[in-house]
């Protein structure tokens, strides 16, 4: 769990995280890469901006980023720190509404940007992967919804 990250560096396996696209082989990833777009970033760049309209999904290939949200009186609040392998941007990916939080890079790294167009292409070449991605993200949203309902 995230509160017992004893060595402060590497996160312990987060049981809360929902794994997506697990078990794809290199060629399947190549297909995704071929149909999407990778972006290199440096430390301290804003990758996503809260309130911006953009519905792409991102996979953090390498590097570390943090999730920021502006709280009352415009002060920014760090919600989480995201490690490589994380997927972000899923809310706007589904509802096409403005971004709910900003993403700022802590280190240099690389993201894979899957726009709706990319997704359509991926789906057209390999519907199974697209289906898998949607179900995985659906599980994440269901998890949040279920917990929100209890909250």
């Amino acid at each position, binding site marked *: 769990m995230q509160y017992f990250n004893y060595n402060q560096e590497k996160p312990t396996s987060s049981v809360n*995280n929902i794994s997506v696209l697990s078990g794809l082989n290199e060629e399947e990833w190549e297909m995704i890469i071929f149909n999407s777009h990778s972006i290199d970033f440096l430390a301290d760049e804003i990758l996503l901006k809260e309130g911006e309209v953009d519905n792409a999904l991102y996979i953090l290939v390498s590097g570390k980023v943090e999730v920021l949200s502006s709280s009352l009186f415009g002060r920014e609040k760090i919600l989480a720190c995201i490690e490589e392998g994380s997927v972000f941007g899923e809310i706007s990916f589904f509802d096409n509404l403005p971004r709910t939080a900003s993403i700022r890079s802590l280190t240099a790294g690389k993201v894979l940007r899957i726009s709706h167009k990319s997704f359509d292409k991926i789906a057209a070449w390999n519907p199974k992967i697209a289906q898998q991605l949607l179900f995985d993200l659906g599980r*994440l949203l269901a998890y949040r919804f279920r917990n929100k309902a*209890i909250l």
Partner: protein
Amino acid sequence: MNKPAFPNYTQLPSRLPPAIWWFFRGIVLLITFLQIYLLFFKPEIGLVLFWQLLIPLLPLSFAIVPGVWRNICPMAFLNQLPRKFGISKEKTLSENLKKVALYTSVIAFIVFVLFRHPVLNHSGVYLGLVLLLALFLALVGGLIFKGRSGWCGTFCPLAPIQKAYGHAPLLVVKNGYCEPCLGCQKNCYDFNPRAAVFSDLNDPDTWWSEKRKFFIALLPGLIIAFFNISYSAEMTLLQYLTSMLMPMVTSVGLFYILHNLFNVGFYKLASLFSMAALSLFYWYGTPVVAKGIFILFDISISEFLITIFQYFVAVVSLLVIIRGLFSEYQHKKSQLNSTQAVIGVGDVGTLQSALSHTQSLVQITEESTGSKLVLQPGKTLLDAIEEAELPIMPGCRMGMCGSDPVVITNGMEGLDPPGEAELTTLRRLGLEGKARLACCCKPKKNISINLKADLSPSTGEEDNQNHELEQSGTLEENDDDLFKIIIIGNGIAGISTAERLREKDSECKITVITKEAYPFYNRMGLEKVLYGRTALQDLYLMKEDWYKENNINSWLNTQVNRIDTENKQIILAIGKAVKYDKLVLATGATAFVPDQPCYQLPGVFTLRNADDALNLRAWVQQNSVKRAVILGGGVLGVEAIEALLEIGLDVSIVNTGPYLMNRQLDEISGDILSKFLVNKGVKVFTNTGIKDIVQQADIKQVELGNGEILKTDIVLLCIGIRADIALAKTAKLITNRGVIVDEQMRTSDPDIFCVGDAAELPDAIGGLWAIGSDQGKVAANVLLGEDDYYSTKSLPTVQLKVSGIDLKSFGALKESHDGYAINKYGSFTGGIIRWTYVVSKKGVLVGGVFVNTPMVANNVISASKEIDNVLTSEELQNLFLIDEKVIKKGKIW
């Protein structure tokens, strides 16, 4: 910086300097040994002191500031001494031992309490021995295991009760032992005091979480039993234990009933039960303590004070519960925020390695947005810009239309020089040396571009309204001495003619007349008008003042009724006659619409010119169209699909041929295209045509040749184009399907030329930009007196403009004739299908199809352009070698 809801030990303030803590630890250890001494040698004082004064201090301190006891506990002190002196073996407690430890500590605590009545309450010796044993074990634990894992967080019988009462501390005190943390135990209370309870109760290992719950569940029962049941000599031990067990079982039962029947969450139950236990403990215990104080110090405490204290504890319990509820809220909130999708650790490796394989190092920096794009091998700058969803207007993708000029701000010199088509286009746009066309540009080194740099052929808003009626020149014929050339039509053929004329002759009077209401625009971008936001603005391919700058008269929205060859003049629909010395017909072609009445129904469209696109878009919006049927599976039909999908329609496509684009593709590539489109949600019907369209209420029913019926709202006809020869007929020119011309583009009238789609010349395929452009230049040269002949310089190339599939075709795909050799190559990796099919005759390339093999396509097509290039079979093979994927992973089909 906000205070974290669940601070770990590094984020907690130090409330006291370490030296003070060590001092207190020493004092407490001394008191403990004094206590043990009293138990052995003065048990009548020792027992009262222990049970009725010292022990009752602990639970309340656990609830209010659990950190204090964790810092000064004598067992912890002894446990931590080996670490302090560096003599601990620092072994890691195995996962199994961690579980056993929890078990042992819980059982030890319960046994300890159960044996108070029979033994420990009365026997100083036994109690003293138990305490000594505990101290000894704590020390041994510290000698063997690292951190506090040998006792405090694990085997210590006091730990479970401390964690239960201290689940939501009112005050957090930083642990003073573990700097730095060794990560020795699971869900360590010292590491994160507020989060420990949540991690314990929600632990995915039920072995762990259930034991925590179970212990808390029985706690109130244990306390009730302890204070209400006494052990007497008449009872057997078994009877005593059984009667003690009953309240505990009831308590546990109640806990789970509340959870299962009333859906109370485990955290709330745990909080409620532990605080109930605390209140009960002091409710029963305060009078006992009062008695102890009386015995020890001869001070009597009034009933009133006792009651006050009992209520005080109840209030503390309530506060802890409230603090706990707040923590629970914060915890849930943080869980929601922190839960995210991840690809597994192994998968990240696979992804990184896949990325390292597929990517060259070419990086493009777009300066206006700061985006950094990575160019994949074989892809163009246009592909990269489109992929990143940056603003660009793709057109022909072959460097001819000029819709996608991009300013290279850095690295221009490192690019391959523009090819002939690109260069001509850049000259037309006046951008030679200033920009490159994204579709032709394949940088091999990093470059920077700026998409916002001011270049666009259609400039700012204020000019837009002028387009429609912008005319220049006059009808007055006061310049009789000038050589007058009239060009009818302002498509690529007409514009190329005008451009070349002006380039070669600055004197002659050039007039371009067109019935369309728009200046020269990008016909290949028409689909974008259907779903884009800018109507036609982005399609204009000329700078606003191009006509003026080049001294060319332009007549938009002007219909020519007939040509009067005798008087060498044309008659406009508005009645005027305009004289010419030479006339160039560039009237182009119109979409073919069959004569049957069903094709004249409203809602049946073509997509050939700007008005078609605007009308179709308007109709779709006004009639809330949901479905579309495209008739014709050629290039135009297939390219229309994407625009219709983009505006959210259900699309079906009907092709009379055996597969889609059967003129340009071989059967396998046709099938690949079909599969791709079907996966995009398109319904593909081949080998059949439309028999009839029936309008029923708002819905059209399209009856196919094979009997199937498709319901639709609109029908889009993409079944070819017909040369527009109506005007030529008024001049009695010789026409067939088009206007018959010679290789100098001259019609049967020596003063009239015809170029582009309207002209008919063997080998020149209609509908292609390259041909219209070339013919225009030839006509211009010839009518200025040069000796020029049109010849098909290269085999016609088609690049399918559908995103997601890279499909190129060139030449002809004759298969069955003698002497033709076919090379086929295919591979299927990870869902990407690659296919190459090349036809050659005696070493001369005559045609080919390339699906997702852009680099091979480039190689083969540029080889085919070298005239008289006869390839050996080895050279032919080498053309394929460029795309390693095809060679390495593919198999020969």
